């Protein structure tokens, strides 16, 4: 197959599926829509695998805009390829917006991630939504939005220019909004989807400002030009961003402001502190969509964005990378602490997602473009993105199975499920081991590399924080695991005629696929070689001290969780009784939501909105009222002239004639 001819299908097919399923929602039953949607996405997934496989292992070429033939690989270097680049809007000669298809190691990897997770979620949702089944006619809508999301996410990672990325960035935001609010009859879901949309949209405002500043000064949207990093082009790249480095605003170079604003956009989507507040609430959506959007793909868009512009950050704004790394480290620790105190299983996973994405951000923050030693963090981050997408999606889908049986999200309703749903339990265990960083599961490799990157680039404080967070991660994940599957069995299970059980094949197959990927990750060929910032192959170093410490900390975390939560006992309650205020504080997510709410209420509503409302009320309405007042008075004064009494008219007419006659005469 010719890559150039199949590449457009990757974007077109999900989009057409969205339109088709959306328009025929009332014609087909939910199951039919699900089958059509899943089949179509299956084709897309095969194309994605094929393109990524050809890119990493095959040999093909495309012709670029200047007529040169570009191969996917020259020697050791994987090239950046623009498969196609349609002009979408030509505003002026320089200002052109393209829609294209851009292949480089990270977008090829994202193709694999999106294809795998989205396909598995399509399959899983068939079982989940159908058996959950009180809302069958909504299923067509659900699948239509899933297609929209897949389209948007693929367009985002394949963007050739930052503006295309922004367009698809907003599209994934919309589909996230639609999926969180899928149960629109539940007030909690409605407020959660509004919250998610408003918070991410607020962050996207910064993204847009950043794009505008950057592209105004560099005169380009194209990643190719922004990221140009080959020997000669490095200098050009400097030159390109040097234009905005010279100019300062409020004491900061403009490039710093631009790149930081772009990062803030990414922080909104990737739920970095303080924009993380939307993600825990987003768990109101159906669980499979949480697995797809709020665990594996959309929330890593921010990481992908920073990785995409990594040369710009590294050359032109290393101080922003430092900021990213400190914000990331704080978020990781903060979210891990909150996760310890949550009782809703999906909320625990949500905070764990925030924490793990922060790991990726930290890894990007400590990396520097240049040679293989300094850019280890970049590779580690992308690797963690991949492994995290797989095992976190699996954990969410396991949660879906559990919630399906128990019909509650609360930990206290669970316990002792191990013997009822062994397949789910095994998959969950694999996921927990992977996220805790126990070899040989996938999480161990990626997390180990992140910690080594922190250590080797000289961020020792960050390294200590991240290692501690790794211990906390192990603790809260195993607290969750033991609490769900052991602890104290809910007495209702034994007596109930509807015992918890493993679900049908549609819901078990995705778990097993993800579990297999997680377990055999270290056998996957070529991964850690290809995905580097310089796009040359590299061997991952193994820092045994760092790895050893991380395993020890993880085991410690698991051990504490085992002592406290394996069997029912009084210890957790006793510990919590010692500092109830602190527990309450952490359980309430450290009051960050309240702070935002307070800022919104007291500052935005109380000051800005009040001033605007005053202006609107008095100035704009006042002007309108004044106009109305004048008109009314004038008409009241003159309406007697229009009496309809013909004799009065004649009287006026005669008087007028006489007056004119006198005027004419004298």
């Amino acid at each position, binding site marked *: 197959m010719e890559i150039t001819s199949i590449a457009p299908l990757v974007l077109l097919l999900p989009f057409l599926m969205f339109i088709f399923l959306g328009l025929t929602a009332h014609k087909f039953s939910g199951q039919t829509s699900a089958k059509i949607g899943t089949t179509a996405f299956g084709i897309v997934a095969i194309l994605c695998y094929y393109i990524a496989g050809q890119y990493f292992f095959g040999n093909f070429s495309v012709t670029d805009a200047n007529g040169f033939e570009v191969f996917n690989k020259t020697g050791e270097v994987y090239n950046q390829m623009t498969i196609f680049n349609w002009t979408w809007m030509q505003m002026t000669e320089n200002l052109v917006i393209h829609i294209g298809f851009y292949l480089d190691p990270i977008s090829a990897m994202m193709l694999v991630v999106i294809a795998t997770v989205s396909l598995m979620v399509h399959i899983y949702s068939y079982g989940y939504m159908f058996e959950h089944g009180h809302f069958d006619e909504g299923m067509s809508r659900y699948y239509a939005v899933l297609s929209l999301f897949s389209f948007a996410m693929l367009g985002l990672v394949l963007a050739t220019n930052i503006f295309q990325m922004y367009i698809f960035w907003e599209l994934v935001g919309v589909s996230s909004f639609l999926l969180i609010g899928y149960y629109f009859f539940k007030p909690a879901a409605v407020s959660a989807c509004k919250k998610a949309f408003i918070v991410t949209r607020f962050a996207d405002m910064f993204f847009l400002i950043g794009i505008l500043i950057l592209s105004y000064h560099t005169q380009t949207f194209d990643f190719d030009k922004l990221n140009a990093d080959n020997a000669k082009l490095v200098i050009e790249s400097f030159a390109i961003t040097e234009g905005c480095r010279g100019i300062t605003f409020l004491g900061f170079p403009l490039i710093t402001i631009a790149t930081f604003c772009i990062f803030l956009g990414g922080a909104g989507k990737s739920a970095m502190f303080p924009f993380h507040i939307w993600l825990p609430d987003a768990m109101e959506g159906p669980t499979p969509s949480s697995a797809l959007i709020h665990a594996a793909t959309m929330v890593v868009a921010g990481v992908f964005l920073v990785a995409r512009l990594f040369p710009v950050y590294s050359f032109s704004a290393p101080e922003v990378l430092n900021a990213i790394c400190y914000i990331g480290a704080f978020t990781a620790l903060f979210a891990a602490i909150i996760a310890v105190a949550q009782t809703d299983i999906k909320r625990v996973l949500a905070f764990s997602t925030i924490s793990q994405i922060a790991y990726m951000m930290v890894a990007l923050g400590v990396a520097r473009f240049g040679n293989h030693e300094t850019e280890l963090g970049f590779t580690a981050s992308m690797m963690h993105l991949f492994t995290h997408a797989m095992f976190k999606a699996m954990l969410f889908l396991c949660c879906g199975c559990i919630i399906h049986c128990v019909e509650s999200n609360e930990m206290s309703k669970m316990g002792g499920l191990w013997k009822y749903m062994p397949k789910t339990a095994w998959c969950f265990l694999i996921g927990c081991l992977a996220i805790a960083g126990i070899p040989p599961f996938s999480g161990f490799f990626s997390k180990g590399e992140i910690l080594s990157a922190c250590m080797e680039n000289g961020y020792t404080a960050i390294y200590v924080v991240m290692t501690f967070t790794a211990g906390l991660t192990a603790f809260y994940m195993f607290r969750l695991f033991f609490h769900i599957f052991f602890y104290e069995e809910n007495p209702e299970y034994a007596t109930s005629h509807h015992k918890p059980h493993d679900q049908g094949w549609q819901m078990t197959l995705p778990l097993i696929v993800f579990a297999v990927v997680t377990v055999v990750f270290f056998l996957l060929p070529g991964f850690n070689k290809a995905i580097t910032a310089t796009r040359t192959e590299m061997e991952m170093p193994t820092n045994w001290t760092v790895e050893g410490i991380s395993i020890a900390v993880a085991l410690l975390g698991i051990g504490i969780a085992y002592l406290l939560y394996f069997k029912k006992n009084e210890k957790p309650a006793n510990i919590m009784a010692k500092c109830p205020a602190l527990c309450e504080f952490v359980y309430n997510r450290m009051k960050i939501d309240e702070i935002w709410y307070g800022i919104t209420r007291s500052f935005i509503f109380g000051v800005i909105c009040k001033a605007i409302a005053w202006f609107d009320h008095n100035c704009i309405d006042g002007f309108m009222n004044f106009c109305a007042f004048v008109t009314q008075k004038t008409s009241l004064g003159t309406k007697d002239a229009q009496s*309809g*009494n*013909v*004799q009065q008219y*004649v009287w006026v007419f*005669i008087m007028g004639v006489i007056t004119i006659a006198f005027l004419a005469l004298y």
Partner: protein
Amino acid sequence: MIPVQFYLVISTLLFFIGVFGFISRKNLIGLLMSIELILNAVNINFVAFNRYLFPEQIEGYIYSLFVIVVAAAETAVAMAIIMNVYRKFGNETVKSIKELKN
């Protein structure tokens, strides 16, 4: 020969009597009659000026005849309207038809 001023005084008196009647009468038929007076004042002017200024020509006479014909036609139409007004409102005063609605 009677001087032209006599005719003019008569016609002016007639005109203002008509105008006064048009303004002060409550009855629609009275109004119609007042209009006839005004038209007749005009006719007198036409005839008088024709006689004194251009005795060899007859345009002024013809115009006064025109005015009489038009006045007759107008009276016919006005009478029809007044009949309708009377049927609708039960009287034929000017006050009853000052509203545009209904």
